[in-house]
């Protein structure tokens, strides 16, 4: 049939089959393999922000337990507060690079559940259709904010828990870095917590060669805030803004 090769050709640069994985039927190999890591299912990487459904994205934030606040409110189960969808929309609009990864819903299920080696004709036909943002489920995301000239900061790299440790996160970071360096931006920073440090090291990030110290604004309200002070909540931190300075006399 003329259809299959043509469509694969068209999406060739977008479809990823995982660098070291054999191009085999994923679930069958997984069922037979046993101790082997399940091969990466076919995924579609997009850098087009319009491919993202905001509600799906917010759900991905929740399932990855990521809040946009660096010091989020955490409930008794260790879950962070859900991200505000309006602010998320604004943040996306002002992010210079937005990467999203899609996967077919049943591929995702196959990774979590054991699948039987017998596949019906319907399943085979379904697998022949390549994954696209419209028929796929959002399983990975990452974004970067840049001044389009000198610097960039990477934020919110996330992959659905069931598809982690397959190299998708690294693919997202590599794609972001590639886009930024193609725009001549080489000063790329990523804020990370202790548990994210190894991941970013594996992506080629390290300590600042200029030896700078990362600092964040954490001034909090003292016990007796004055009436004219501005106070803002940022997750579980309540930040105190610097007071308005009077123009000082000579």
């Amino acid at each position, binding site marked *: 049939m003329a259809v299959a090769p043509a469509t694969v050709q068209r999406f060739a640069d977008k479809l990823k089959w995982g660098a070291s994985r054999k191009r085999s039927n994923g679930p069958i190999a997984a069922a037979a393999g046993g101790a082997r890591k399940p091969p990466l299912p076919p995924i579609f990487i997009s850098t087009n922000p319009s491919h993202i459904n905001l509600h799906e994205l917010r759900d991905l934030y929740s399932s990855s337990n990521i809040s946009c606040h660096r010091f989020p409110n955490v409930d008794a189960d260790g879950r962070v507060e859900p991200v505000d969808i309006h602010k998320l929309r604004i943040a996306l609009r002002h992010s210079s690079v937005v990467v999203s990864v899609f996967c077919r819903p049943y591929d995702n299920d196959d990774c979590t559940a054991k699948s039987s080696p017998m596949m019906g004709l319907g399943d085979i036909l379904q697998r022949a259709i390549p994954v696209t943002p419209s028929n796929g489920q959002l399983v990975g995301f990452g974004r970067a904010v840049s001044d*389009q000239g000198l610097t960039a900061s990477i934020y919110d790299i996330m992959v659905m828990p069931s598809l982690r440790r397959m190299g998708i996160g690294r693919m997202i970071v590599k794609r972001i870095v590639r886009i930024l360096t193609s725009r*001549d931006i080489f000063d790329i920073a990523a804020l990370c917590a202790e548990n994210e440090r190894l991941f970013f090291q594996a992506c080629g*990030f390290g300590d600042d060669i200029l030896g700078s110290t990362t*600092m*964040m604004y954490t001034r909090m309200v003292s016990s007796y805030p004055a009436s004219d002070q501005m106070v803002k909540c940022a997750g579980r931190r309540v*930040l105190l803004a610097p007071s308005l300075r009077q123009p000082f006399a000579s």
Partner: protein
Amino acid sequence: MLDICIFVTSVLFFPARRKLKVCQTRASFWESIRSGFLKNNTTQVIEPPSTNQEEEEPLPEEFVLVEKTLADGAIEQIIFSSGGDVDVYDLQALCDKVGWPRRPLSKLSAALKNSYMVATLHSLRKSPGEERNEQKKLIGMARATSDHAFNATIWDVLVDPSYQGQGLGKALVEKTIRALLQRDIGNITLFADSQVVEFYRNLGFEPDPEGIKGMFWHPRY
């Protein structure tokens, strides 16, 4: 899915090359209609055109921070401005004065244009009797990049060495923080050289809070 259906029908029923062209034209036709409706072509987020509320940029401010009378009777004013009106050549001269390495002007210019906020200090010297002869000089700057919602990073804070020690740098940074917090942007970060860590600590910054560190991309050759 629709794309694939059109594609499939085109391949099966029509001479491949000619129909393919029409299909691609049709696809791009709808794309252009859609992008025409959206406010900003480069970031297509599927949602109705945004309201004024969301697009509100920080209102540019300009006021006199310090005013003093000099020995020769001239008046010098130090004017704070957040309008971002910076001459790149003046900025490069200022960077030279503080001893920073030179950066390409086009990149500097792009960085300024795409920063969330650029706060500047200019010195305005008015000689007595020569009201029209005003000397305006850039003496300080601070800029911040942000996603306008959650995160911001303050870069490039600098003050002319001959004006340092007067609290001007402090004023620049405090104003920037205030403007960011006003928009509920709570994650304010910066990467401080060792000699200015104390300066920022006094302004309310904490190094590596809760173990959060910045990592930088190292190119692999």
